[in-house]
Every structure is written in C-alpha cells, then in structure tokens.
C-alpha cells in the first residue's frame, strides 16, 4: 500500500466517523426554526422539563432534565435547571454519578462512535505494520505506530465511558413521595420514605416492586408505579 493509499484510507475512516456521529451535521447545519417539542432531542426534553417545573411538577421536570442530560451532558442550562428544581423540591444537590461528577464533554453515543473510530484506526494501523512492506520503511513506521496507539486509547476511553454509562440504566425518578418497605409486598413494613423528584438507583425487581437505594444510601422496596426510569428501553 502506497502513501497515497494510506492517506485515502484515513480520510475515508474520518469521513465515516463524522457522518456516523452526526457531529458534522450539528456543527454546520443552520439553526432550525422553533418547532413543537419532538420527543428525544436534548432541547425538546429540556423545554419539556421547564414546562413541567413551571406547572409545579418537579418529578416530571427532573425526569425530563435527566433524559436531556443523557443526550447533551455538556449543556449548562440543563444542569442549572435540574439543580434549581431539586433545590426547590427540598432535595440536596445531586452527588456522584458519572454525569455530575465528571462533567463529561460528550454524549454516550458520541463516545461510542469515537471508540469505534479509534478501534478502526488501531486495527488498520496494526495490520499494515504487520504486513511489513510499508512498515519496512521508517518514514511510515512511526506515524503508523502513533495512529495505532492513539486509536487504542480512544477505544479504551470509549469502553470506560460505556461502563460508567451502564449505571444510568438503573436510575429512576420518584414520581411521588412513597414509602419504601422492607419487603416487596403491599403491606410491607415501611423503612423510610422516598421523596418526590429524588433520583434513586434500582437494583432488583419483584412483582411490581423495585428494590432501590436512595440518595442517602438507604435500601427498600418501592412500588414501581411511584417510579419512572430515566432511560427507556
């Protein structure tokens, strides 16, 4: 493979990555006119959260903000309004969690495609190095090694992000204040109360009840009707 061939391959991979991640579209597209909130865009979910907050529905507002944050974690407005609503509901600032703790710069989907691109770059570079015809010449060997290492690091970063994102799948927003009981039955002994608009982590489901851990680390079974999953599958 000639030097021109390598350049063509790298350009093709970059084009694939850009088109898949949607970065190109987001950066170059002209501002679209305001439309009625379609589901599942960060802006639409954010606007829906604002509307719920203004109507005095803090739990639904928190739910919309959390979902919007999933699509656009770097948006400071989402974080600010989520903080405001939680504070108004008498909840402490949310601590922990990948989104809050690390102020991530990109959405999980962007990180996924970044990892795929890194994996492709590393794989192609390693195969070329293995072929040795081009790699026999020092001119190509060093750049190929740099591309392979960089691609590998991107792939590792993506894997780490995927592991951290997995915790989001188990987040639930408390729709209304409800008792958490010691067992998943209707007349179970109440242990504590989960507060409306609080975010809890689900651990195990059993017949309409979910074993949750609240922000204070307490565990109890809560009826599933009182909870809404942040991530819908």
């Amino acid at each position, binding site marked *: 493979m000639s030097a021109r061939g390598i350049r063509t391959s790298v350009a093709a991979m970059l084009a694939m990555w850009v088109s898949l991640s*949607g970065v190109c579209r*987001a950066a170059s*597209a002209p*501002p*679209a*006119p*305001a439309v009625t*909130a379609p*589901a*599942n*865009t*960060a*802006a639409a979910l*954010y*606007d829906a959260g*604002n*509307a719920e*907050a*203004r*109507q*005095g*529905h*803090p739990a639904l507002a928190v739910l919309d903000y959390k*979902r919007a944050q999933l*699509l656009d974690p770097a948006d400071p*407005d989402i974080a600010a*309004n989520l903080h*405001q*609503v939680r504070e*108004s509901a*008498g909840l402490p600032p949310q601590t922990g969690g990948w989104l809050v703790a690390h102020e991530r710069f990109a*959405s*999980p*989907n962007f990180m*996924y495609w970044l*990892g*795929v691109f890194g*994996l*492709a770059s*590393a*794989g*192609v570079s390693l*195969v070329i190095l*293995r*072929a040795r015809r081009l790699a026999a010449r020092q001119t190509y060997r060093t750049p190929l090694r740099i591309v392979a290492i960089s691609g590998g690091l991107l*792939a590792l970063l993506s894997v780490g992000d*995927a592991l951290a*994102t*997995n915790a*989001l*799948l188990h987040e639930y927003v408390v729709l209304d*204040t409800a008792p958490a009981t*010691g067992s998943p039955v209707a007349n179970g*002994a*109440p242990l*504590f*109360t989960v507060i409306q608009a609080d975010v809890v982590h689900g651990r195990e489901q059993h017949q309409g009840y979910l074993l949750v851990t609240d922000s204070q680390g307490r565990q109890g079974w809560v009826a599933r009707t009182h909870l809404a999953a942040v*991530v*819908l*599958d």
Partner: protein
Amino acid sequence: MLFPTFKSRAAFIVSVAAALLAGAAHAATPSVTQRIEPSTIGLGDTAQLTIAESGDGAAAITPPMVAGLEFLAVSQSQRIEAINGVTRSTSSVTYQVIPQHAGVFKIPVPQQGGTALELTVTANGAGNRSGSANATGNSSSSAVSGSGEAHATADGSAFVRLRLPTHELYVGERIPVDIEVGTRDGMVSSLNGAPTLNGDAFTLEPLAANPERTAEVLNGRPYTVFTWHSALEAVKPGKLSLTMETPLTVKIRHAAPQDSFFAGSGLDDLLDDPTLRNFFGTETEKEITVASAPAAFTVLALPTAGRPADFTGAVGHFTVSSDVSDSQTVAGDPITLRLHVAGAGNFDRVNAHMLQNPDHWTTYAPKASFKPTDAVGYRGEKTFEQPVIARDSGSESLPALDFSWFDPTTRRYETAQTVPLRVAVTAAPNGSPAVAQNTPPAGGQVPAIGAGAPAAQDGLRPDHVVTGERSASLLPLSQRPAFIAIPSLMILAFSGAFFWVGRRRDDADSGAPNALQTYQSLLYEAAKSNDPELFFRAGRAALQQACGSIWHVPPYTVTLETVEARLGAQGTAAQVFRLADEASYSNEALQPCDFRRWHSLIERQLTEVMS
C-alpha cells in the same frame, strides 16, 4: 546437681535470715479462704472468685479445676506482717469465673475440711448481677434518660453499653439511643470502627465519625467512654432484641513461666512474684469484637382502629401551627402558606397534604424543609411551604390545615387542626384577576414567591430552540446489543487480518532463507571438493536467491546486468556472476586459498544484501 543444691542453700539462707530478724518466730499454720461473688449468675455473665492464703509455708495459689468453668486471674496481692515477733504472710488472687454452660458448679477448697463453694449459672441470664462485672453504669453526660447495662469483655478491658429511654415501642417510632463504648487505658490499643447494629428488625441512624469522649469509673476501674448519639427505629412488630458490636484491638500480656528458677526454694514468694513475672512477660495485640448485652424490645404494630385517612406514618409527639407570608396581598400575586410541625419523632414520615385548590385560591405543590434541634434529627421542626394565589379580591380565608400522627404515650392517633387564616386581598391594578381558574398561569409558570415577580424570575433558564434530529431511543448505543456487536466484529476482523497477514509474511520470508541455506551448503561442499564450476554456480545461485528475496522479484530474473546496475559492476556479486559463466567452460583450477577467499567474499556479500 547444682540446681537442688542452690535451692537448698537459698532455703537455708532465708531460714537463717528469718530467724535472725524475727527471733523466736512461731510457725503459724497456713489457712486458705475463698469466696465467690455473686453466687448466681446468668450464662454469659461472670463472677469473681477470690482465694486468700495466709500463714507460714503457704504454697503458691493455683486456680481450681472445675469442668465447665474457666478461671482467669485478674488481680493478685501479697502482704507480709510481723506482730509480736510472729511473721505472717497473706496472698490473695482474684479470678474471673466464666461459665461455659448453665448448671450448678462446686468449686473445691484446696484445704482439708473446707467447704466447697457453689456457683449457680442460669441459662436465661437472670442471675443476680450486683457486684459482678456486668454492672449498671450511670453517666451524667448521657442525652438519653434511660440507663443501660455495660457488657464487658472477659478481661474487663472494654465494654459496650446501650442507653435506651424505653423497651416498648411502635413500628416506625423513633427513639433516641446512646451507644457507649468504654475502654481501659493501657489495655485497649485502638477502636477499629464505630459500633454496628446486630438485629435486622431495626434501623439505626448513621453514627458520627467523632464520638463524645468522657472518663468513667466502673467497678473501681477507670474507663475512657466513647458515646455515639443516634436514633433507633423498629421495622416490624414482635418480641425483638438487638446488640451493638464494636471491633477493637486489645493488648494481651503473657506472664513469664511459673516454673521459676527459684521454684521450691524459700525465695519463691519474693522472687517469683506475679508482678515480676508480668514485668518480664511479653505483650501482644489481638483484634476482638465486644458486644453489648442484648436489649430486648416489645415492638407493637400501629393500631388500625381509628387511623385517620390522612395519616402518613408519623409517630411521636408533635405540635402544629400555620401562618402566611403576607396577610395582605393583591389578587394574582402569590403568597406562601406555611405549616409548622414541631416536636419529636420520625420526621422523615411527617408529611402534610396542605391545600388542594380550595375556593377562591389557586394552589401549587408544597415543598418541605426540616430543621433538627438535636444531633440525630429526633427533635426539630418540619415546615411545609405552599405557594397560593388569591383569585378574588376581598377578605379571603385560607382554610384550616389538618395533620395526623400516632402518639405512643397516649397510644392513639391524634389529629391537630390549625386555625383558618384571614388574608386581605385587593384587586389587581388593571381591575381583573391575574389568575383565572384552577389552571396554571399563562405560560405554565409558577410565579415566584415574593411581590408579583415576572415569569423570568422563576429561577429557570430559558427554553432552547429545538434543533437536531430525533433520537429513536434514549438507550445509549454502547448498551444496545446490536451496537455492542459492531466493535466486537471489528476486533474479530482485525485479529483475523492481523494473523493472516503475519502468516503470509512469514511464509514469504521462510522460502528464501531455506533455499539460501541450501546454496550456502553447496558452496561449502564445492570448495571442499575443489570444484570451481560448482562453487561459482552455487555462489551465483545464492546471490540470486538473496537479491530476489530482498528486491521482491523471482530469483531467476536477477542477472549480471541487474546486479551490475544495483550493486555495482565491480562488486563481488558481479564478479561471482562473471566467474560462474567462465568456470563452466574454462575448467580453470583454483587453489584452496582462492576457494577460502572467494567463499569469504560471497558470504560477506550475502550478509550485506540480506541486511
């Protein structure tokens, strides 16, 4: 024979010294007394056995051997007195008696005619605990009015004590509890963590990292007492019990062996003293867990009879009041209705429904805040704040608020009702109410609490312009099986390509060296057999193989012209090619030294080409 000789001499010296000092000393008859306190204990408790021996010629005190009882020496003393020329020594040892099982034990007296002691151990732990190691403490620093039983370790180095105001409570009722851990200075190296609860029917508020520290004397022994204040709550009814455990590290001193150098001699009593043995003994540390005595509770279920409809699980003693942020307002402007619930109890279950859109008022969701007045959140005040807006002008009334709870003292449900609040509402400046009916204001915004703030003052950042494409699912790609397969397949594909390319390369590499090695062997054999034609032809073939491998061309295409062009016309390779052509028809012989020289040149050329 030196040892018994020395002991005899020592006994003789002591005897002579005693005779000189005491004159005509009389030999008193040795006597042994012993007592045990208390004589009845529960299993898990301990008693104290004191053995005193007085008189001349007394033997060393040894603990009795009783099956089912363990004797642990905790203190010892020795006294020598001379009265009217008569010397008398008294030794006493105090043992802690630890029963292994319930029953009646007879402790023999090591003296003829003595009466054996009797120790009764009951299985239910209901023995007389007065004077035993399980003592009732009383600390003035406790925040809980009740007293607790200190449950000590076998050697008395530490104890754990619970102070509880009551042993009867209701499900959901919260009671304050003080957890005290006492440690003997010098006997406990460290506390290895806060006490932990043993009992799955209770929940305990998290314990502070820094407990209170006080000094206390218990059973005549000084202790440093660490106190954690917390609150306890039962989660199910029944006859229940709990204990608290604390991990700690204690120092254990091992005394020197009793078979002293002076055993059997008259110096035993002086030189084989237990204090001296301890002084020369060793000390080790051991991690143990000390637990409190089980605290028994009667946990009652909340009665269903008479339970108010608005009961949310609050149990305790509460007082209720309400007020409003402004008794004069303008129609359409929000004011805040506040409900204060103060007292002691489980505030996490204190909830109020507040107002649900009464006549002439628009209401919004309330929010709650709690201000504790103690360290564990048992006492304090919870305030519910609800934004309300008057729809009509005039003298309006905010209805009374109800709050229900269960009072464990009166053992019944209580319902308190606040008084209705009067609010003077004036008409809005434009003469029309700002808020129409029971619907949110225009724009869906809850007006900020205060003085009719504009909508932008609700603390929320403005809406965004909706751009971008819709996402079909919120589930991140990295968590979808189909997308997890993509990198997996890529890894498989690249791994396959990696090994396939490597194998092809190895195959290509492996052919040239094998052929080259064959020609090099042939070159060596030709030189050995003095065959110039075969020698140069083998040399040429080896060079063709090497050059073809490196230049990626078939070996037969490497000709004299190619070699001259790429390696030089006067190079060794070109000369070998020419000599190979000449040798086939000239039949010119070569000297052995010529073979060696050409062989060396060809090998060097091959090395240069391959490198």
